[in-house]
């Protein structure tokens, strides 16, 4: 075991959350950031629209409004103490990013510019409020770059292209991780006082998704296998506007700038579903609306997509109908050039992948699997909590999309994820370093790499009767069809059956590549193993929750049921099966009420 490294803090993942944690931890503790991708390749870079904070740079806004909107958006499943904490911290967090050099777009008077986003409202008028601070439509990219750059400046130790495969827990304490160096296939053990997991989500378990190939839920699977429960895994966000078939995201910012949804009959349909904020309703509401339109035969050409119309003349027309105005009260208008300046990447995606120009044509869109609301349960300091009493596991932290604080509850508001990354990434980093500075190194297990080696062995020794690619395709399809936007008992049972069958078949998969250098076949197969387990947990949790709430919509239980289900799910993965328990939701100021937009 030659490859043992010792660090006070080890961060797994170099997305927004991981880098933020690494940056803050490295200020006081010896810190390593391990990532299976080059940090700048992390999925945070794909985030487009913006980061939410009640800066009030353009119009009046308050953290309390942000809090309320988030609570409402979460369909009252979010923990209100954490939400309040995040929304209060938000303006400072965004300013801090600016101080690190992040090139936000600017208002004419030089302040950070903000745009409206779904679910963000002025609580007094109920009208959309400009809360999303943005850098064109590549806010996430800028956050990722800025944080990476700051980490370089701070000389954080990076282990790029090291994939973490196992979490080491000894005597109820996290003591490190095991990772493989992709370049030479060698296993490395990282011995640490604190481990921060920030590996992102697992959207790749679905067929149509906006998520990267790397979004295979590694961190969640690893923690789950080591006995950590997962919180609220049934809640997955389907973003209403993905490019038809490809799933590539068209940011909500398009609707923020005035774009509208049009069904196959050429009608704007959102006013039917959300009379006040219409096309800027919360994501789950819009995704369901789109599906309802499609099901009732109003998709385009009878297919399962509708239009997103961002042609300037349409925007101006509907803005006039809605009485939307600029800040100075003049009617809202936009030109093709302005659209291009505000949303260059969106225009580019359409040109490249669809061959259409959104300035003159409508975009075919379909809901796309987008965001993992559930994940590793933590408190608001990023400390992982492992039961219904919120008992902290010493030395283990999680932040970002893989964590469940829970601030997003049953449905995440747009722009709140980036905020989640920077706020909780920061606190996870601070807490992890604080803990590391007063703790001793725990003992490593005798053979730390044993589990990893045997997992690899199994993959090498499969019979080869099954093809991993086929298994992945089948899993994605059944998950998207049966555990997608609309769910029913029958469908979910089919899905669970299917995933179990696939897990059996997975045992027959054989990895043909026997090399050590960049054995991506081995790692893809290993990732598939993670996804299959996660898929099963997601489906089990979804089947278990007999109500509709936020991103979880059941046809057989169409209503929210606060009496029985205003509680978090906790799911353990034990001997290849899911065991479910619950944990109460923290409610401080806002009592649940009906959610209308």
């Amino acid at each position, binding site marked *: 075991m030659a490859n043992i490294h010792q660090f006070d803090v080890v961060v797994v993942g170099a997305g927004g959350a991981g880098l933020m944690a690494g940056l803050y931890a490295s200020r006081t503790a010896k810190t390593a950031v391990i990532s299976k*991708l*080059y940090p700048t390749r992390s999925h945070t870079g794909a985030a487009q629209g913006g980061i939410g904070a009640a800066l009030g740079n353009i119009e009046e806004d308050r953290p309390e409004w942000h809090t309320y909107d988030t609570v409402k958006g979460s369909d009252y499943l979010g923990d209100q103490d954490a939400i309040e904490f995040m929304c209060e911290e938000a303006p400072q967090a965004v*300013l801090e990013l600016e101080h690190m050099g992040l090139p936000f777009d600017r208002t004419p008077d030089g302040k950070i510019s903000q745009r409206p986003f779904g679910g963000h409202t002025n609580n007094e008028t109920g009208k959309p409020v400009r809360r999303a601070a943005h850098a*064109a439509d590549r806010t996430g990219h*800028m956050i990722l770059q800025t944080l990476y750059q700051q980490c370089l400046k701070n000389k954080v130790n990076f282990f790029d292209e090291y994939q973490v495969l196992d979490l080491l827990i000894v005597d109820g304490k996290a003591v490190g991780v095991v990772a493989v160096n992709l370049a030479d296939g060698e296993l490395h053990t990282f011995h640490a006082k604190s481990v921060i997991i920030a590996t992102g989500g697992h959207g790749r378990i679905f067929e149509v998704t906006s998520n990267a190939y790397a979004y295979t839920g590694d961190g969640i699977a690893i923690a789950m296998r080591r006995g950590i429960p997962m919180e609220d895994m049934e809640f997955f966000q389907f973003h209403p506007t993905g490019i038809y078939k490809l799933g590539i995201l068209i940011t909500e910012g398009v609707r923020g700038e005035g774009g509208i949804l049009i069904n196959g009959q050429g009608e704007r349909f959102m006013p039917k579903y959300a009379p006040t904020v219409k096309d800027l309703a919360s994501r789950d509401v819009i995704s369901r609306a789109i599906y309802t339109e499609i099901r009732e035969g109003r998709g385009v050409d009878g297919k399962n997509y509708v239009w997103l119309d961002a042609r300037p003349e349409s925007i101006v027309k509907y803005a006039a109908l809605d009485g939307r105005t600029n800040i100075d009260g003049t009617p809202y208008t936009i030109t093709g050039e302005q659209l291009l300046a505000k949303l260059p990447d969106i225009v580019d995606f359409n040109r490249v992948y669809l061959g259409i120009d959104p300035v003159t044509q409508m975009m075919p869109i379909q809901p796309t699997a987008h965001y993992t609301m559930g994940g590793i349960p933590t408190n608001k300091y990023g400390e992982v909590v492992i039961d219904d009493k919120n008992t902290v596991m010493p030395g283990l932290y999680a932040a970002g999309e893989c964590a469940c604080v829970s601030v997003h509850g049953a449905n995440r508001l747009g722009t709140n994820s980036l905020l989640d990354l920077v706020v909780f990434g920061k606190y996870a980093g601070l807490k992890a370093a604080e803990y590391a500075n007063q703790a001793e190194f725990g003992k490593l297990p005798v053979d730390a790499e044993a589990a990893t080696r045997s997992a690899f062995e199994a993959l090498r020794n499969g019979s080869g009767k099954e093809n991993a690619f086929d298994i992945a395709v089948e899993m994605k399809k059944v998950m998207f069809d049966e555990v997608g936007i609309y769910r029913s008992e029958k469908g979910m049972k089919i899905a669970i059956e299917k995933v179990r069958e696939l897990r059996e078949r997975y045992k027959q998969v054989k990895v043909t*590549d026997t090399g050590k250098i960049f054995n991506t076949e081995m790692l893809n197969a290993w990732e598939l193993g993670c996804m299959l387990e996660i898929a099963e947990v997601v489906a089990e949790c979804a089947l278990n929750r007999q109500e509709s709430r936020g991103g979880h919509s059941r046809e057989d239980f169409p209503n929210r049921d606060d009496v029985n289900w205003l509680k978090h799910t906790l799911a353990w993965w034990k001997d290849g099966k899911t065991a479910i328990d619950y944990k109460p939701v923290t409610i401080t100021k806002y009592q649940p009420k009906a959610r209308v937009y």
Partner: protein
Amino acid sequence: MQITLKIFRYNPEVDSTFHYETYTLEGEETDRVLDLLEKVKGYNDGTLSFRRSCAHGVCGSDALRINGRNYLACKVLVRDIGTNITVEPILGMKIIKDLIVDMEPFFENYKKVLPWFINDSPLPADGKERLQSPEQRAIFDEGTKCILCACCTTSCPSFWASDDYLGPAALVTAHRFIFDSRDEAASERMEIVSETSGLARCHTAFNCTLACPREIPITKLIGELKIATITGKIE
């Protein structure tokens, strides 16, 4: 439709030298080259290795030489380049395996230009943002789009010529900071980029700009840096 994919293969653990492997597969006009590579890996030969992540041109993982020039595999479609497709690794980097090259030198050059925001003056008294007008913001906008994919640098004849040339990607990043009105280290950076291995080595070959998947006018940005060394004007 039938697509013929000729792929550069090299596995240092078994091959003494590289070779090309040809695969024919079914595909569609709208398939990305990346989709085809995935299919080959899934069904024809699992050992084929390449990097990828986002699949829509924002992470910079899959810069490859496709039909003789640099693209991102996820941002070039069959309908753009036809059904006879050759895929090779980008030029001038050490090949690790198949289409994967060693990116370290590329990132090393990036790090040379101090790619981080530097401003040691006190923050505004109210703790708020440092002000910047939309016009000041616009000057360095283009450079901020860079995803560090290396399409540009590995298409540049000056980079091919010797490995001490900083390369267009590093210069783009330098531009992004030098022209940021809030940054205070313009002088240091200007000196770094105008060393022998920097600016003067760019001969406006323009391959970089044509290869950039983010449509950054790289040559223009480098040109602005060159002029800035002469006039000292950075806005």
